[in-house]
């Protein structure tokens, strides 16, 4: 019962041990380079980097597959759209559709680019605990504090949201069962009717969540939480030699990818 974005495969590989900030910067850099570069050769360099990271991460292929699966539709649609509508000398035409070699090539390129992007992004989310990731993002966002953006508070909010998602799902399930026991029907009717059926479910869920938030806030205050205070962490972010190496290698890969 975990959302796809929070999928994390606990492990102790080289990739797992890298600092969340370094990984995030590397992945962002690669993603940008991936979109700037528009040749198969460049794509191959980034794909190779992604595959090496995947092998080093020790994460089972099945977990990667889970990250890929929901995106296959998108990849498929992108491919179709490009094949059918791309310009170029058609070798086969049908009604408004024109198939050209250039179109096919471009479609393949775009699809592969998406897949490589998902691969690289998955290495980040699969090997970095959500908490470390939010902490890392909060750290990277620190310059925004000058603009009075409460980055640490936002990071804590994300952490709490992630922690309560499973709790809320259980609660939602209980409410739906209770409503079903009293004759509610969530499965039939058109989309509007089904959406309407959810109102009596969401109302108690919201009421419960607000009460929960009140109590949680009180419990946090009782444990000396005050917004704006400097906090330390049990697991502080620690960047080391490995992270410097990662960033160095990333620069090499980006340069190579852009030049080949």
């Amino acid at each position: 019962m975990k959302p796809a974005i929070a999928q994390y495969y606990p492990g102790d590989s080289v990739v797992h041990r890298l600092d969340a900030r370094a990984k995030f910067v590397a992945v962002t850099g690669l993603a940008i380079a991936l979109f700037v570069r528009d040749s198969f050769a460049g794509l191959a360099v980034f794909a190779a980097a992604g595959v090496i990271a995947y092998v080093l991460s020790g994460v089972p292929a099945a977990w990667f597959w889970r990250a890929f699966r929901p995106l296959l539709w998108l990849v498929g649609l992108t491919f179709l759209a490009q094949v059918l509508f791309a310009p170029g000398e058609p070798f086969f035409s049908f009604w408004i559709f024109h198939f050209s070699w250039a179109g096919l090539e471009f479609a393949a390129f775009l699809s592969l680019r998406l897949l490589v992007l998902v691969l690289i992004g998955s290495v980040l989310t699969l090997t970095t605990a959500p908490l470390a990731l939010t902490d890392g993002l909060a750290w990277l966002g620190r310059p925004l504090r000058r603009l009075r953006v409460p980055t640490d508070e936002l990071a804590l909010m994300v952490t709490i949201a992630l922690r309560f998602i499973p709790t809320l799902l259980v609660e939602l399930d209980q409410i739906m069962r209770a409503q079903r026991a009293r004759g509610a029907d969530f499965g039939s009717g058109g989309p509007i009717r089904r959406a309407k059926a959810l109102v009596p479910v969401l109302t108690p869920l919201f009421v419960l969540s607000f009460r929960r938030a009140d109590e949680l806030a009180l419990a946090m205050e009782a444990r000396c939480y005050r917004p704006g205070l400097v906090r330390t962490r049990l697991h502080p972010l620690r960047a080391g030699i490995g992270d410097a190496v990662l960033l160095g290698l990333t620069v090499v890969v980006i340069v190579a990818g852009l030049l080949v």
Partner: protein
Amino acid sequence: MTPPSAGPSEPSAESVDGPTAPEPVAPLLDVRGLRYRYPGASTDALAGLDLSVAAGEFVAVVGANGSGKSTLARLLGGLERPAGASTAVACSHDLLSEDGRMAARRDVGVLFQNPENQLVAECVEDDVAFGLENLAWAPEAIRARVDEMLERFWLTELKTREPHLLSGGQKQRTALAGVLAVPRRALVLDEPTAMLDPAGRDEVLEAVRGLRAGGLAVLYVTQEMDEVVGADRVVALEAGTVVYTGSVGGLFGDGALVRRLGLGLPAAGELALELAAVGREFAPLPLTLDEMLVALGGSS
């Protein structure tokens, strides 16, 4: 009903004598004429309440719903601003001032009823660390203290477990470990077993019993009369004031008061009353099954 094993099993002989005369030390929790009213309410939730708890003392608080027990817990923890009081001191911090309340939050721990709504972090050890992180302890010091707490509340094996995968008792033990990770001088427990199954209650009570050794001032709010047995003293609230303070035996011996407050008796006491109705009298009223067995064995 509650299982007979659920109550603290300490002999109540010492508590029957009432509080043992303490040394002349200022009590850790001390309030006189404490008043509080919720915004928009028409009556006071606390209407001039007097209470004091000394270091090392374990005081139970009972009373019907709405008698002010939870409000008292929040005020003592520095979590709400009293409407007024002639004295309101928690661990030598003045609860009437903003600074005093902030300081009281450090020294007075509060454990709430619903364990689910007290856990903030994504795993047990991070949650235990939360209070220390807020106080900006050094990571190494947090690590050592968290390990100590995990050990003390039998959570070491669960330290990387996510909160939603814990049982009720485990959640409440995690919350207790988190409250006590911050070094406390007083602890207020607000019905910590009310939402737990019997096994979870036993776990938490076992942990609570272990607190008495540490010299903490403990205020234990409960609706379960079996959990009152074994306290040094019991305080009964009605409509925001204290209507009884004294020994556990003294409270349950006053049938009229117990009925008026709607409290009920510990399981053994209820049984003794049933037996009295068929001609088997007990004096004094047994409050635990052990006491009842002794009483039965001694006279038959």
